[in-house]
């Protein structure tokens, strides 16, 4: 079954075509890289898939449901979660709250139930707390649960953002440059972390990365964007030797 099926996705801002005719299919458990130089439209693709932009044309299907044009919170409720290129944690809230909020989208109790602790609200809250603790422990963040998110070291902040995304129980995870601003050692650690997430949660992941070498090692397939056009698709070895890709990255001579 295809977890993600993107067909003919196009985004125009006025006269500028940021992404044109983008197609991609992800099967369950796949880890696919979306790469390309700066400004090639990678984040625009993410913004369309997650509902922040309404595509000019095309269709986005997640788990056989058409999510094109839905609001971001609806897209998340239907099983797509993302992290942002520029960290967007709830910086003033504790680590635990940052993860607990992920379960809010699945909450069945009404605000009325929550205030009066009716109809199993307490049970739902308890369950979310247990799951959050299990999740944080599994991802190596258990010692930081009470710390304010903004005070964590950068590497842990990025991991926390992934944890928060996982708390929404997605079937598709979109990672926008998770290793941005990291040194080579931290980057390698982050890539191991992503592989671990994929294996532990049997997750389907689409990963944006600016540096091609970083994703070469962990992705099964890749798509390369340049000026909004898909210039190559295939396995890392194929991409590495593709002339157009090399030109896009290094310039033609």
């Amino acid at each position, binding site marked *: 079954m295809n977890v993600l099926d993107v067909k003919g996705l196009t985004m125009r801002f006025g006269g500028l075509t940021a992404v044109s005719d983008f197609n991609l299919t992800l099967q369950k458990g796949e880890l696919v890289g979306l790469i390309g130089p700066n400004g090639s439209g990678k984040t625009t693709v993410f913004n369309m898939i997650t509902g*922040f932009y309404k595509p000019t044309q095309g269709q986005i299907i997640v788990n056989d449901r058409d999510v094109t044009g839905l609001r971001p*919170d609806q897209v998340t409720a239907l099983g797509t979660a993302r992290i942002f290129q520029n960290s967007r944690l709830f910086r003033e809230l504790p680590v635990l709250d940052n993860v607990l909020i992920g379960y809010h989208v699945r909450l069945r109790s009404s605000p009325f139930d929550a205030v009066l602790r009716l109809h199993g609200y307490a049970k739902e809250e308890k369950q979310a707390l247990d799951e959050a603790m299990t999740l944080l422990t599994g991802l190596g963040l258990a010692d930081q649960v009470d710390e304010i998110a903004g005070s964590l070291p950068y590497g842990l902040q990025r991991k926390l953002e992934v944890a928060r995304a996982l708390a929404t129980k997605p079937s598709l995870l979109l990672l926008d440059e998770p290793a941005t601003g990291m040194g080579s050692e931290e980057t390698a650690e982050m890539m191991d972390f992503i592989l671990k997430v994929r294996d532990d949660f049997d997750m389907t992941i689409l990963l944006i990365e600016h540096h091609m070498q970083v994703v070469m090692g962990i992705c099964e397939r890749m798509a390369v964007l340049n000026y909004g056009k898909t210039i190559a698709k295939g396995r890392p070895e194929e991409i590495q030797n593709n002339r157009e890709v090399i030109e896009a990255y290094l310039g033609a001579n």
Partner: protein
Amino acid sequence: MKPQKKVRRALSIAAVIAVLLFSVWAERHMDGFQVRIIHMWGIYVILVSSFNLIYGFTGQFSLAHAGLAAVGAYTVALLTLSPADKQVSFMLAPPVWPISVVQWPLLPSLLLGGLLAALAGFIIGAPALRLHGDYLLITTLGFSEIIRLLLCNLPGVTNGAMGLKGIPKDTNLTWVWGLAIITLFITKRLVDSSYGRALKCIRDDEIAAEAVGVNLSSHKVMAFVLSSFFVGIAGGLMSNLLGTVAPSTFKPDLTYAVITMAVLGGVRSLTGGVLAAGIYPVASELLRTIETPRQILGISYPGIPGLRSLAFAAMLLFLILFYRRGLMGSNEFSWGGILSRVQRLFGRPKMGGEQG
């Protein structure tokens, strides 16, 4: 050590009973002036905690408090006045049906006042809360003024700018403080729940909140409607306490007073709001001296009306510039905190009662 949940709950219930008993006692034994201040304190507690909910916890700066309070105040005034009184006091136009015939007791009037304010809050909030920052401010201020101008210009419903007099004063301290405690209880429970967490996330980062599945508009509108409901109740209590209502009572000044209190207490702390709501009316009375004419060292000082507002404006500016966290920041009163402080005071080890 944190006290047991049962102990904390018992202490809270005891405190609520103590407050209510005090209110009964104060009504009988304190002088009218003091009772009046404690009365205003309770009403301000409702107004400030509802502002904390929408601004401190949800991050939506609204200036609609005065207009929403007016909705509650007029609802209560019109429902509790007897039909005969209304016939006498409506000078510009006779009261329209059904206002001309109804008379309700206080409690259902307050409830309807709250519900109508909540409805007004929904009508204002549903479109306005899509806006951010300054735009939200201007829009909510505009809506608040629209409500006030409607009150001025609907003589058959509100007696226009003349306002309403002779509203039966049924309210007492126990009512006011009982409702204030209910407001605090509901607000605190909501803020501590999963919904409250969602509101705080909206305050911190709307885009991230949306990405983790929080429906922005439904949560913001929910908080705004609940806040408006409380403001309507507070407005109703105001009209019942004062015995008169007029559109001029609900100028933006009222909103600014609420904001001053909220900032003084700390916009993220309900405890701070309760403290500031008590400090404000006392300070307001003390500052009366700067408005009264007097002789100072042989020089006669005429007394400048309105100087108090200036003093409060200066205080608000000072708070925002130098003391933004207010009295309490985002801290709340807790029995655990109180007990450990008491124990430290008496030099006992922090382990709790077993050793002492």
